[in-house]
């Protein structure tokens, strides 16, 4: 049996403050992006900010989603601060 995983990516301030650009996490059944965020926040330290006062934006497979969006094995999930281009 292959382990079911998903890829998590961080950008900009989050990438820097977490010291993490990308990680692989086990994919659970009926898991939302918000659940993932809570799981990562529970690591404490800088990770706690994922559920802090600063907004965190979420993309699944490179499309913006709400925290209630379901994540599946093989997905690329990204967390990042509000965008500031242009």
């Amino acid at each position: 049996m292959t382990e079911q995983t998903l890829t998590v990516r961080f950008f900009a301030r989050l990438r820097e403050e977490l010291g993490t650009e990308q990680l692989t996490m086990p994919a659970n059944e009926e898991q939302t992006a918000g659940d993932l965020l809570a799981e990562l926040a529970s690591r404490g330290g800088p990770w706690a900010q994922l559920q802090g006062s600063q907004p965190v934006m979420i993309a699944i497979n490179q499309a913006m989603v709400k925290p209630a969006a379901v994540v599946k094995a093989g997905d690329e999930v990204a967390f990042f601060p509000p965008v500031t281009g242009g």
Partner: protein
Amino acid sequence: MISIQTEDFDTASEYTALRDSGAGTGAIATFTGLVRDHGDTQDVSGLFLEHYPGMTEQVIAGLIEEASRRWDVRKARVIHRVGRLLLREQIVFVGVCSAHRADAFAACEFIMDALKTSAPFWKKELAEDGEHWVEQKASDVARGEAWDK
């Protein structure tokens, strides 16, 4: 057409390409954003722009598609630079070619406004006392949302 690039761009050749958009073209609106020489803080010497490769292009393609549904758009061009930029350098170009001026203006401004709130770019200001990430402006969010009304 969409380009995300570290190199500078030439608005003259972009204009020429937009103008050569075939029959019925009557109006070309362009917008160019520059690095302002005084940012949110003093002593800023430049910017660093990070983006989410792949997603950026998808988001902008979606904005051009939406603009083309809402207005007459004969051709649209978006260029956004990433990496390190000095003061006064060009950051972003949006050009729209249309049959009519109202459509050219609206589509160009819509793409630019929506890009600011939905395309995954992040700016970091480089100052003498260090670097700091730019916060999203409430006015940008409001302008982006105004197009939904």
